[in-house]
């Protein structure tokens, strides 16, 4: 069902409140290209072709990082992103993302931002905070803690895929035909951890294993994990944040790995974003995050399907 007029009004109020909050924190709202030569390179994100060798962005992160490297310290963008073949109660090929960066600040600052933003959204929606479990501080935990608690597995982050598969299978999870580290991990995650997160108060999950680094930098005191958190609330994956990798050599190596994996799996291989790599050395230590705006509205309104909070469903 498309959203009712009342829901659309609430969505507009939430958007307005979110913009006002970023403005009050001193963020500069930016507007980067939606049609690019190098969309997100990640193995499990597929871009939609936009003609003449261009693609629609799966996230605005590459251009926003170039702005940070050029001297912007607090920037935010609220705009559309596109991811091919994603359809479901929590997924749309076209959706609205809030992405923001804090240069010179730690990852924890973004978690604090999220707590405030979720409260701002719920207040704008006119819903009682206690009913949504946000009247107390959000839970902060780590991937290792969750895996130990819900699967009884000690996860280091530097074990190879074969060892991980054996441990996951011993815990009673069926990894199916999975041989890649991330595929085995996410089978465990979906079977054991996500159901527990769905029942819990809003929770930040920190310290992701290095094989799930994406664009995050290794933790200085334990490089088997990276500076990354995800925020889960009301059964929704609301946000993903990184202490951004600024090492251009390591970033190039990851892009090349991802390009090779994409080629092996028969997926489109996107050109490596050389302008981003050229800009990285000038980028200060930065924390960056993407939060799904449609899902934030779902959480604030208690909706269970993204279609309930968007005006048109047939996209």
């Amino acid at each position, binding site marked *: 069902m498309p959203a009712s007029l009342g829901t659309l009004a609430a969505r507009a109020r939430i958007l307005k409140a979110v913009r006002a909050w970023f403005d009050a924190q001193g963020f500069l709202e930016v507007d980067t290209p939606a049609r690019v030569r190098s969309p997100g390179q990640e193995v499990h994100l597929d871009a939609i072709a936009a003609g003449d060798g261009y693609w629609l962005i799966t996230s605005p992160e590459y251009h926003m990082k170039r702005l940070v490297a050029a001297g912007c310290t607090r920037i935010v963008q609220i705009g559309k992103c596109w991811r091919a073949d994603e359809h479901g109660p929590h997924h749309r090929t076209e959706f609205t993302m809030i992405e923001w960066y804090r240069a010179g600040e730690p990852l924890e600052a973004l978690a604090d931002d999220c707590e405030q933003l979720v409260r701002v959204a719920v207040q704008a929606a006119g819903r009682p905070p206690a009913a949504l479990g946000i009247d107390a501080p959000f839970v902060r935990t780590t991937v290792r803690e969750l895996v130990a608690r819900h699967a009884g597995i000690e996860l280091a982050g530097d074990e190879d895929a074969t060892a991980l598969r054996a441990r996951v299978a011993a815990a009673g999870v069926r990894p*199916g*035909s999975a041989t890649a580290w991330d*595929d085995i991990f*996410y*089978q465990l995650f*979906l079977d054991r951890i996500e159901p527990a997160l769905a029942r819990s108060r809003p929770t930040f999950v920190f310290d992701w294993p290095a094989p799930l680094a994406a664009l995050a930098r290794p933790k200085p005191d334990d490089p088997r994990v990276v500076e990354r958190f995800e925020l889960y609330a009301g059964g929704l994956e609301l946000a993903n944040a990184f202490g951004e990798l600024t090492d251009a050599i390591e970033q190039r190596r990851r892009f090349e790995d991802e390009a090779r994996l994409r080629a092996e799996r028969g997926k489109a291989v996107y050109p490596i974003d050389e302008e981003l790599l050229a800009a990285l050395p000038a980028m200060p230590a930065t924390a960056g995050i993407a939060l799904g705006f449609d899902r934030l509205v779902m959480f604030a309104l208690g909706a269970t399907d993204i279609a309930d909070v968007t005006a048109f469903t047939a996209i």
Partner: protein
Amino acid sequence: MYDTSDIRKGLKIMVDGSPYTVVEFQFVKPGKGAAFTRTKMKNLLTGAVLERNLRSGDKLEPADVETKTMQYLYADADSFIFMDTSTYDQVNIPKATVGDSADFMPENINVEVLFFNGRAVGVSLPNFIEQTVMEAEPGFRGDTATGATKPAKISTGASINVPLFISVGDVIKIDTRTGEYLERVGRA
């Protein structure tokens, strides 16, 4: 073989050696991981419900199951004999396989027989049947509103609780899933 993109309601697949039918499914994509299909399935032999997260690209073995409309003819010592209504072939199905369904399976009724790897493994009855009461205490006309009931026997030998006004020769409607009397529909 199927893969996850083939998943839809009613798809019949093998899981751990048993045939299942898909009841519900949902696209999920955790973190920066691969797409999965959260799939709720019902075991076609036991009715047990199972949920599995099937990763995109996982292969699924089709279950060799088929349902045929068959007419129940008669019983012998240890089996029931059915006839395929399209080919007129007859098959024997062990009484244990039919189980309690036999209580509401009068002769000549059409049922759906489930075959797994070519072998009959289950019988499903129509949800409602109409049966003539064969035995019951005499009826009390006019007594339609109190909740009181009495046992009555139908042709299969099963005994069900009916209101006091029902008498021998009445045709009654029965819910085969619960074994409950629903209404009186006429006289035989």
